[in-house]
């Protein structure tokens, strides 16, 4: 445990140091980077050695303010969720070395690094917190620091709006969490996590639902995902990479933690999680298809992946509830592994989108094109990330999904509700898989392939060195995990060791399974290489020419005739019309010689629309009547405070 705190300390120093030496821009960046890397390596080594040794969970307690105890505990679940924290954070920081390259903004960069370090440290603390107070503190710290990271470019109105939206969701979610914690406290009379299992069964369900909403708003479960597609595009790319790749997983961690603490094997929990997962997964990917803003699309795709992870957890819970051990095991293992994999490829994709944004100044897929030639490294790594996130072999995304599938299939022998749930999960996974493929062929095919659709895209050049380096590293690890999944799957299994409900399953079955997949993946790669060589041979001494694309008889094609992201996705989005309202603005053609006409279609978010219509608008309407309270006279404000204190003293 001491090593862990040492790592946190080093990370915090890495945050504070830039504030003092912000004048030397490059020195500041590299020193922060080095310290962060050192801290994360220390943390990672501690976590990995803890996971690989079957040691007891380590704990530490500190008294704080005399009344509270800050209590930390490192068990295998925490350790597993700490891996992405310590792995992705330094890489994203390395990426930012060439991403934040304006020396005139050195103070702001320093502040950014400070908040970044706080975020990393607080995420690590969230994962190890072992009582209510500690958890709440770390959770709030995480929300606040990430809020400041989001509003990095605070001059833009859009960014501020996104920041406020995020803030509201973070705090609203936290309120639900506190409600859940309050319920726990009122029944156990203790802040400690250890006694949570003692509360009565009917309260457990309520606690779980409250906590699920609270954690769900952080993780981005539909319909609480609204902040994601606003906050991610607004934040700088290294921040979106960490937020999307790592931070929203803390919501998942929370769900797993509260589930394991409650220790209840009720089927209702499983139903909640699995249904939320299916809705989140399918709608997330459909919205991702409908969005033409690259970072928005990636944000929605995070929503989708949270859905997949939830489906995995749900399958695991169904397995626990109905006593099918293999199902429970594979479900949780798949979800855990997907948490890890998603951290890798989602941060990779955000970095790729960031590089494109950095070099072209636009995030709109409809303005891009042909970047594969101009940014070869970015393009290739983005391609790898896209295959991985579509869950296709031989990349890492497939392994997690495969385990979830396998777990779900084990549940098909059940009757009644569990059977229906697992069947629907399998169908949802298949639909999500297909749509994700469509979504990321759109991203790769329209942004990186074809011809540039705008001046900016035509003039783009390759991103800076550290950006390339990080992307190549991540892309390589995507492929590596896909081909040699065994140690990583083992890691996920080790991570589940402290998930007591699941229990230990026979490792033989899935080790052979994973080996088989690995074998097939390498066989496939060999086959592809073989066919490529064959193809090479077929082209020996053949005439190979270059020419324009065949225009089907049309002789003067322009780049604007290419399919755009909107047209590519239109029919698919159309299919889900009732759930995906699209707004079309068309001025129409009226005269015989029509003048300028406009046509615009935009996919709207169902949740956003209805939350605005059903919650915000009435709320604003009623709260407006209370406006007189806020009049701007400071003396009266102080009066309010005095009144409040008096009232509190009297009644409590």
């Amino acid at each position, binding site marked *: 445990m001491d090593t862990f705190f040492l790592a946190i300390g080093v990370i915090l120093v890495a945050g504070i140091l830039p504030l003092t030496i912000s004048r030397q821009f490059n020195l500041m960046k590299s020193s922060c980077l080095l310290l962060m890397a050192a801290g994360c390596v220390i943390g990672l080594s501690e976590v990995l050695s803890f996971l690989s040794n079957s040691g007891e969970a380590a704990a530490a307690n500190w008294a704080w303010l005399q009344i509270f105890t800050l209590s930390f505990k490192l068990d295998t679940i925490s350790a597993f969720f700490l891996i992405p924290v310590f792995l992705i954070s330094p890489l994203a920081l390395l990426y930012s070395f060439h991403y934040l390259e304006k020396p005139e903004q050195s103070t702001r960069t320093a502040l950014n690094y400070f908040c970044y370090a706080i975020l990393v440290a607080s995420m690590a603390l969230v994962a190890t917190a072992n009582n209510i107070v500690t958890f709440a503190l770390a959770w709030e710290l995480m929300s606040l620091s990430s809020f400041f990271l989001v509003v990095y470019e605070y001059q833009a109105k859009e960014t501020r709006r996104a920041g406020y939206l995020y803030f509201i969701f973070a705090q609203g979610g936290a309120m639900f969490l506190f409600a859940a914690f309050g319920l726990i406290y009122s029944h156990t009379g203790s802040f400690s996590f250890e006694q949570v299992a003692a509360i009565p069964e009917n309260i457990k369900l309520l606690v779980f639902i409250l906590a699920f909403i609270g954690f769900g708003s952080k993780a981005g479960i539909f319909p609480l995902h609204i902040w994601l597609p606003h906050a991610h595009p607004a934040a700088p790319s290294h921040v979106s990479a960490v937020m999307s790749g790592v931070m929203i997983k803390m919501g998942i961690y929370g769900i797993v933690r509260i589930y394991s603490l409650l220790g209840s094997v009720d089927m209702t929990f499983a139903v909640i999680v699995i249904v939320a997962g299916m809705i989140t997964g399918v709608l997330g990917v459909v919205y991702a298809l409908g969005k033409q803003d690259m970072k928005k699309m990636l944000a929605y795709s995070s929503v989708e992946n949270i859905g997949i992870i939830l489906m995995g957890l749900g399958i695991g819970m169904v397995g626990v509830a109905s006593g099918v051990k293999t199902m429970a095991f594979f479900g949780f293992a798949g979800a855990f592994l997907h948490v890890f994999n998603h951290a890798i490829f989602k941060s990779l994709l955000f970095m790729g989108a960031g590089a494109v944004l950095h070099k072209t100044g636009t995030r709109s897929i409809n303005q891009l094109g*042909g970047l*594969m*030639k101009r940014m070869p490294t970015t393009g290739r790594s983005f*391609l790898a990330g896209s*295959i991985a996130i579509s*869950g*296709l*072999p031989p990349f890492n995304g497939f392994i997690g999904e*495969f385990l979830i599938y396998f777990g779900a*299939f084990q549940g*098909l022998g059940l*009757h009644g509700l569990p059977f229906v749930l697992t069947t629907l999960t*399998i*169908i949802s*996974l*298949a*639909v999500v*898989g*297909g*749509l994700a*493929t469509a979504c*990321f*062929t759109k991203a*790769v*095919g329209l942004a990186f*392939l*074809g*011809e540039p659709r705008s001046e900016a895209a035509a003039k783009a050049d390759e991103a800076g060195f550290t950006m390339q380096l990080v992307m190549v590293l991540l892309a390589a690890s995507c492929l590596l995990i896909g081909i040699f999944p065994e140690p990583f799957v083992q890691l996920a299994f080790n991570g589940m060791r402290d998930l007591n409900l699941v229990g230990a399953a026979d490792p033989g079955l899935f080790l052979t*399974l994973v080996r*088989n997949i690995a074998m*097939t993946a390498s*066989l*496939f790669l060999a*086959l*592809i290489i073989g*066919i*490529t060589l064959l*193809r090479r041979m*077929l*082209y020996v001494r*053949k*005439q*190979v*020419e*270059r*020419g324009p*694309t*065949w*225009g*089907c008889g049309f002789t003067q*094609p322009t780049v604007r005739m*290419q*399919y755009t992201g909107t*047209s*590519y*996705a*239109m*029919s*698919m989005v159309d*299919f889900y019309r009732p759930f995906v309202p699209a707004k079309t603005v068309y001025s129409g053609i009226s005269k015989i010689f029509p003048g300028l006409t406009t046509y615009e279609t935009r996919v709207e978010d169902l949740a956003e629309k209805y939350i605005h219509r059903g919650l915000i608008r009435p709320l604003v309407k009623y709260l407006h009547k209370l406006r007189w309270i806020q009049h701007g006279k400071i003396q009266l404000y102080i009066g309010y405070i005095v009144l409040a204190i008096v009232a509190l003293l009297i009644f409590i």
Partner: protein
Amino acid sequence: MESIISFGIAMLAAPLFPGVILKMKAFWAGKKGPPLLIKYYTFFKLLKKGSVYSNSTTFVFKMGPTVSLGAAIMALLFFPLGGTAPILAFEGDVILIFYMLALGRFFTICAALDTASPFEGMGAAREAYYSTLAEATVFVILVLFYRLSGALSFAEFFSGPAPITVMGPAGALLLLVIVSLFMVLLTENSRVPVDDPATHLELTMIHEVMILDHSGPDLALIELGAFYKLFFYAAFITHILHPLQYGAPWVNGLVFYGIMALIYAAVGLTESIMARFRMNLVPKFILTSFALVFFATILTMGVIK
């Protein structure tokens, strides 16, 4: 050893069967039709040619044919062809195989988008759309098969203790599966009534328009991949139609290829009597296939309890 020979025969024979479709269509049209071996002739003709590449394309364009062919070959490696055990098999291989095929599609779509042609983009969008629907059907079929056989591998489906066949106890359900699988076959392999590769207008195509810019050996590889994919789906149906459990391997093989020819003939018949659907009716077609199998799955819930 037997498996490898069987696999080799399948690899060689796959281009023969599309010829059956052509013959069948010609027969119904009252024509003589091209020779049965026509696909071999075109294949070798294409191999001899050179290629023209579009200026817009990158390496992804060249990976399209390679990966789609590789994926189709992988699918056949895991399939019990002609009554022999597949070369490779493990629990869960079906999921892997359908994801492999999806990978092939990923690259075909990307290769099409790489040419910057509006027509190929259109084809790509349609292919992506229809395959998302067909994928759901396929996975419900897997759910049903798991319900029936308790296995997740092609080898187990058809040669395990309770082989899946129309002759078996759940025959009525499997009839539904066969119909819907046939519909998936038509969709995934771009046949009439989903897609008509033989029309004169690129606007109305799906798969054929995506590979417009491929030429020479590249095109040959794509065609070969398409033959294997069609072969895979047809073999899938064949096994459900008739279990291959005769003693001698050559009898198995003969029966297998006989039924295969019948299925290809059925494809040809469908193409002769139907016209291509309007594009907005295709989703309904695929959804019908989904409804059929989903329905069969629900029945397993009520009946086989």
